[in-house]
């Protein structure tokens, strides 16, 4: 399985967030996306997942064009971000059942238990999300994402606000994620952690790919230097 973005262009009003970005990710591997604030990391993930309408380019899954308007494509995608996307007044189990229902999973008991076990959150099922720590919420969010067994998982700054224990647990869960047939795309500021987890990486700078390579053999300072030097540059303006 291959996910490929070709010449992706996304505009926010007059600001061009992605300017002809091409990227590809393979099954069983993690692609890390690095870059300074405003480089276009989140927009790239939204473009690839179909969450963001494209102003140019296309996204291909195994060579077939896909779009966020297609429910069949959305059923194959899972997203984890720094915002948990869970309802605080509901328990973890109620949240998971609700989202499982949206994915058409009626008898979700087994899937629910499996998803919670995989992220070490089975003890949290009856707890209201609003009463959980940040790390526990993030694990519940990951369980929600795994519930429908997505083929492509996008992780947008999933480690933000996590303590070392929470980060370690999430890291272990992510490592397990990529051992299957899944495609995993991870956007993060934490270059050292990203290089440790990823098989390949790319650096975005002002909406363009500045560097793309295999993670092996790269150190965090080298990669950080690639985007730090130009972090203060303004985003590209749309011509005309």
């Amino acid at each position, binding site marked *: 399985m291959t996910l490929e973005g070709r010449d992706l262009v996304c505009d926010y009003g007059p600001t061009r967030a992605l300017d002809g970005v091409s990227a590809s990710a393979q099954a069983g591997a993690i692609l890390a996306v690095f870059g300074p604030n405003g480089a276009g990391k989140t927009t790239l993930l*939204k473009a690839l*997942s179909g*969450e*963001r*309408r494209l102003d140019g380019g296309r996204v291909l899954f195994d060579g077939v064009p896909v779009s*966020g308007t297609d*429910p*069949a494509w*959305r*059923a194959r*995608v*899972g*997203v984890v*971000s720094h*915002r*948990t*996307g*869970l*309802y*605080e*007044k*509901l328990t973890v189990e*109620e949240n998971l059942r*609700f*989202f499982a*229902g*949206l*994915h*058409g999973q*009626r008898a979700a008991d087994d899937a629910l238990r499996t998803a919670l076990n995989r992220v070490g959150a089975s003890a949290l099922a009856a707890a209201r999300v609003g009463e959980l720590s940040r790390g526990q919420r993030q694990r519940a969010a990951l369980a*929600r994402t795994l519930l429908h067994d997505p083929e492509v998982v996008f992780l947008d700054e999933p480690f933000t606000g996590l303590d070392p224990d929470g980060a370690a647990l999430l890291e272990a869960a992510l490592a397990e994620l990529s051992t299957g047939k899944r495609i995993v795309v991870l956007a993060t500021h934490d270059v050292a952690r990203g290089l440790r987890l990823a098989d390949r990486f790319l650096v975005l700078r002002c909406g363009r790919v500045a560097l793309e390579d295999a993670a092996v053999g790269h150190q965090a300072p080298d990669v950080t230097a690639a985007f730090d030097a130009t972090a203060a540059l303004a985003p590209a303006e749309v011509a005309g």
Partner: protein
Amino acid sequence: MRELRWIWLFAAKDLRTELRSGGRLPAMAAFVVLAGFLFAVSLDRTQIPSRSVAAGLLWLVVLFAAIAGAGRTFDLEDRHGAFRHVLLAPVSRRAVFLGKTAANLVLLWLATALAFVAVTAFLGVRSPGALVAHGAVLLPGTVGLAAVGTFFGRVSSHSSLGDTLLPVLALPLLVPVVFFGATATARVFLDRPWPEVAGPVRLLWAFALGALAAGAVLFRHTAED
């Protein structure tokens, strides 16, 4: 079948969340009782018969309770980014709209029942007419209010103007609901025969079904990025 299940899922989730957070319903109830009381003390009932003004006041209270409730429809959805994950699921936007409208409708019915009791009690309306007839008028009216409120609740939550935009967009569209609703309710209060009430009720149903259909079709344009 799947659409119905999604609608049920959304309505049940919204009502459960509302029950636990207790945000909208107490606010709507407080407004309804306070408005009924203020209208009652500010009117000189020796000059204006209560039954003549009760219908208009009832519909005004219900209208503003609907707007107040609709303004917070998407608060909990957006607060922790849950709506992003709803939109990422393969659920139809039509079902999301209808599910949220159904939950708003249940809350609005509770507020409407309370408003009816408050207005008739505070204004001292001793014989308000047949309750079934009032229900037959209020049902299509509240469906229209809930549908328009839910749709524009999403539009305003998506806008930088926030809740201030909701009444500006919704109120002009809701004038027919209040006009036909108050006309029909006034006739019920005055014990007029049903054929005199049926005309405005048919128009209320036409508005309600039109609002539901338009909202179901257009909601995806307001929901997606």
